[in-house]
């Protein structure tokens, strides 16, 4: 019986992973992020979908937890502590505008739909956080890394990622049903942890790197993965959120060790994160999407406008031209992995109604597709518009 179960689990898992590979290929062919397709894949196979997977469920659950840890660990590895500090200094004003403009629509919609405090805080995060992964790729694909407005866009992303480190612990506390004081306490612990890690990383980053570093690939991988899961587990035990623990560890690892770590962990992250997106799709009932579709569309339209507004304002302060402002604004539109991480947390705690998952999925699908498209079409559109207004000759 046990052997039979194992066989079934392997077959299901294999089918899922192979299917993801095919979807990823489709995404690469049309030049988009695979995340929306993974979500759709999950929708098809999950509750109320075509086929239900049960044998591989336990593994996918744990794997998706590891996926979140790896997503945040690699995010942390991308930044050095000094980049975070200077990025923060340069972008705090734009960062605040970003928070206010883009979290508010999520909060309003959650409150209107009666999802309560937990739902409102979770939705705030979902609509606020842009996808640094998709955006960095789009900027590179469109050859905009040398443009004047690009540092502005990137420093807003840095600010967002740092806000995540303060936001996730609060969200976890609220979702767990802890009161205001307990929430404040976790936030305090988290902020303290961030400060300590930043100081350690700035002063003693090389010692942290030395501990995990190794010439041997196998030992290096084991030490990295082990320390990431340990830190994430401990952080989770003190209610600071596993993801934040991993993020902070990533920041503390620096220089060539960070580079080597990224290289060695990237395939693992892609695998586990893909399973995470699928699980989120799996646990969303496709039949719950149509009722929230209108709201998701509205939310998408509003936050596309507010994200463009944020980028426009920030780029204007940095002295960019009108086209530069438009490019900066549309670059920020894409949402992706972190919106789903937040929604995934909310769903896992069961503190939000079923429509929440449907709303988050639909919204991220829309924004993950709209972002890269908007970034590509804005300039030709603006040029066309200017020509029309001032006829040649």
């Amino acid at each position: 019986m046990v052997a039979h179960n194992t066989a079934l689990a392997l077959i299901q898992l294999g089918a899922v992973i192979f299917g993801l590979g095919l979807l990823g290929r489709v995404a690469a062919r049309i030049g988009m992020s695979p995340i929306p397709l993974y979500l759709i894949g999950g929708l098809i196979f999950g509750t109320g979908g075509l086929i239900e997977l049960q044998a591989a469920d336990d593994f996918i659950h744990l794997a998706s937890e590891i996926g979140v840890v790896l997503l945040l660990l690699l995010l942390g590895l991308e930044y050095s502590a000094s980049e975070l500090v200077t990025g923060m200094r340069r972008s705090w004003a734009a960062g605040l505008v970003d928070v206010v403009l883009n979290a508010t629509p999520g909060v309003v919609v959650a409150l209107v739909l009666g999802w309560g405090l937990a739902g409102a805080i979770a939705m705030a995060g979902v609509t606020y956080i842009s996808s640094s992964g998709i955006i960095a790729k789009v900027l590179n694909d469109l050859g905009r890394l040398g443009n004047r407005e690009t540092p502005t866009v990137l420093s807003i992303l840095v600010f967002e990622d740092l806000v995540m480190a303060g936001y996730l612990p609060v969200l976890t506390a609220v979702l767990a049903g802890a009161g205001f004081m307990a929430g404040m306490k976790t936030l305090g612990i988290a902020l303290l942890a961030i400060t300590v890690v930043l100081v350690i990383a700035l002063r003693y980053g090389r010692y942290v790197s030395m501990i995990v570093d190794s010439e041997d690939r196998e030992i290096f991988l084991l030490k990295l993965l082990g320390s990431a899961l340990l830190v994430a587990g401990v952080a989770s035990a003190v209610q600071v959120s596993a993801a934040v623990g991993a993020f902070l560890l990533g920041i503390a690892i620096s220089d060539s060790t960070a580079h080597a770590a990224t290289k060695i962990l990237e395939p693992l992250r892609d695998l586990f994160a893909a399973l995470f997106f699928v699980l989120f799709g799996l646990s969303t009932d496709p039949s719950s999407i149509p009722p929230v579709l209108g709201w998701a569309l509205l939310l998408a339209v509003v936050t596309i406008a507010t994200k463009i507004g944020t980028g426009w304002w920030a780029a204007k302060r940095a002295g960019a031209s009108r086209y530069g402002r438009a490019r900066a604004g549309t670059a920020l539109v894409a949402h992706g992995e972190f919106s789903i991480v937040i929604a995934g947390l909310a769903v896992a705690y069961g503190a939000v109604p079923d429509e929440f998952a449907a709303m988050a999925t639909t919204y991220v699908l829309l924004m993950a597709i709209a972002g890269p498209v908007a970034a590509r079409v804005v300039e030709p559109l603006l040029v066309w518009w200017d020509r029309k207004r001032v006829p040649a000759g």
Partner: protein
Amino acid sequence: MNVEVTPLPGIGVRKEFSVARGRRRIGIIDHKDGSIDLILSKSDNPDVTEQIPLSAHEAAVLANLLGAPQLVAQLREEHREFDGVTTRQLQIRKGSPFDGRPLRDTEMRTRTKTSIVAVMRAGNPIPSPGPEFLFTAGDLLIVVGTTQGLDAAAAILTDG
């Protein structure tokens, strides 16, 4: 020269400077993963850049192409204290009699008293080429000698 260094968090570092003639910026993006982009701002719009991804090898070749005249200038500078010795950059052109033949066939040292101190091939410097070194069209030769010797060397490389 004021090289502007801008950190691009999560991506790498951008290093660029303004070109004196023509309101343009030129520079590179040094990616964290080691790859390099050449960037050049567009002439009609200094905010937008052309981004040309280079492999490590291509970047090295470009650096050497830019560096070859530098090398000649440096050698010339070093030889200045020896009266009458100078350095020149000569090319094996298409149709040169030495295209595909070894260095020894030129009998350069005997005939002109000059010496070939380096060859730049496809942007890569090959120092002190031996007598069996095979020339190919496009090779840039860094040759040291007297002015008359260098003139003679240039004539030999073209006409044999």
